[in-house]
């Protein structure tokens, strides 16, 4: 796929890893990829290959060691923290448990980059919160304490928080992990709708089904390269098989993948 002008986030020769300056550990060779406005991008790859590290690097939570990340045509390192938060939101696998916090309270925290020094919720913020809550179908549960929510409901609240952040780009680390089938369906449906309404959503997943059938673009991370393309492209050029390269059941992969053609 080409990089169009509608690219909202891209990275070039990016070296991700962790550790201090003296003892850094780089996980992968330089990576490059793009996400366009309004696309639903799935990041797939084996466990431990570096999906979470990549996502964290993209939002500025983790330092990277080479290359650059461009957001809205600006270099990530040039964007001030608060401004970055207004453009890009994040959901991790961490489960939030705070007592005495309602759904409204949690979503309201998403207004952090927009509120004043004490975090006062003005009318504009209130509206944004209300919209976010209704878009994620949580209106009825607005006053419920978050510790009383089901896993699926909680995940929706986290998404609502990012919506309240007014971020156009949403980065999610395994949003459907820990969820049961109906829960997974809820979330996937939700993020699909959000993408359709203009949000750019980059999420990592182990669910090949979802990745191949529902997304616009896939970033496949192998241990030595990143393969980017639409689901069709990746299926046709046999890239997906590379993901199973080192596993023992290589022979049956082609059969398995046939289900998706």
């Amino acid at each position, binding site marked *: 796929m080409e990089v169009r002008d509608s690219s909202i986030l891209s990275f070039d020769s990016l070296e991700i890893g962790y550790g201090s300056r003296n003892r850094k550990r780089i996980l992968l060779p330089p990576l490059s990829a793009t996400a366009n406005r309004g696309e639903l991008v799935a990041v797939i790859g084996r466990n431990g290959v570096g999906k979470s590290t990549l996502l964290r690097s993209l939002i500025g939570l983790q330092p990277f060691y080479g290359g650059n990340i461009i957001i809205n045509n600006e270099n990530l390192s040039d964007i001030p*923290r608060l401004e970055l938060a207004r453009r890009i939101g994040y959901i991790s696998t961490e489960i939030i448990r705070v007592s005495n916090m309602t759904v409204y309270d949690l979503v309201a925290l998403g207004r952090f*980059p927009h509120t004043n020094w004490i975090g006062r919720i003005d009318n504009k913020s209130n509206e944004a919160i209300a919209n976010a809550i209704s878009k994620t179908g949580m209106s009825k549960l607005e006053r419920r304490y978050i510790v009383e929510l089901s896993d699926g409901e909680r995940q929706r609240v986290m998404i609502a928080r990012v919506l309240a952040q007014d971020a156009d780009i949403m980065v999610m680390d395994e949003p459907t992990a820990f969820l049961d089938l109906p829960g997974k369906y809820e979330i996937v449906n939700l993020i699909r709708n959000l993408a359709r309404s203009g949000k750019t959503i980059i999420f990592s997943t182990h669910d090949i089904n979802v990745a191949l059938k529902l997304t616009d673009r896939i970033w496949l991370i192998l241990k030595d390269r990143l393969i980017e393309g639409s689901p069709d492209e990746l299926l046709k050029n046999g890239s997906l098989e590379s993901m199973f390269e080192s596993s023992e059941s290589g022979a049956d992969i082609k059969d398995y993948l046939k289900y998706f053609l």
Partner: protein
Amino acid sequence: MSIKKNDLPGRSKPLIFIIMGFLLVLIFILDLFLGSVNIRPAEVIRAIFRDTGSDIETIVMQFRLPKAITSVFVGIALSLSGLQMQTIFRNPLAGPYILGVSSGASLGVAIVILGFSSGLVLSGLQGFGNWILVISAWAGAGAVMMLIMFISSRLRDIMTILILGIMLASGLTAIVSIMQYFSSESMLKAYVIWTMGSLGNLSSGQLNVLVISVSTGIFISILSIKRLNALLLGENYAGSMGLNVKASRTIVFVCTSILAGSVTAFCGPIGFIGIAVPHIVRNIFKTSDHAILVPGSILAGGIVMTASDIVSQLPGSESVLPINSVTSLIGIPVVIWIILRNRNNSVLF
């Protein structure tokens, strides 16, 4: 779709604040009225507003008033620093001393009281009396703070910092134990008495310094309300929402060191208030919003500490109890109650 800002169902926050405000004033006045020496309330009031130079006036103005003011500010300082430690570490059992601030102060004081075991040097220091203890306590607390800052800038994970802080506190306490082991009876007693805490010992000069430091801490805490709320979700989420996590750590740690360090320097290590009061406030207001918790802790801290002071004075009897025993008696049941109440919920915090 107009959804109103979330109001606590059935609990009017402004009303609770007003009640707490009244309670604080009431307890403060009560602390002035009650003490070992029997003074009628009318006489107390007269002593405050007139300038007769009577002995009653001396007791009220020189002994009780400074002590009452100290109680209020110590209560505020401990509660605010405890609140911030609980939030930043997301740990309900965290308190003002968890980073070792009071252990550092204790070491400083131990060096002065216990370390110079030949009475010679000690008597040389006696000329400075109280201030020497304050300065050495502050120096100890400050040194620990610098160490924690340094560690914090090197380590990503805040849980690691928590554990290191606890270990540091234990290590410093161990050093003090060794010093205690080798010291003579009278010095040991002096040191032990210091660890029991004392609110009534401040000269007006020291009281001024305490009030200024605690007020600084209050000011910083209020400015930190927004960042503390963000930190409720953890440093990762807070960072993703635009918080400067590194700067926040520094600000919160410095604020705690100022608050907890000042208290320890002037009054010795007073425990349990810092852990218990934030929980009391959370449960009264049923919120995690620091815009409520910070002022709530200020009021509640002042109330609880002053009440403890009244109890420790054993009004009517000539004896007194050390303040630390009273705060433990209050704090321990609260801590136990928190743990028991939440064992099913798995949410303590």
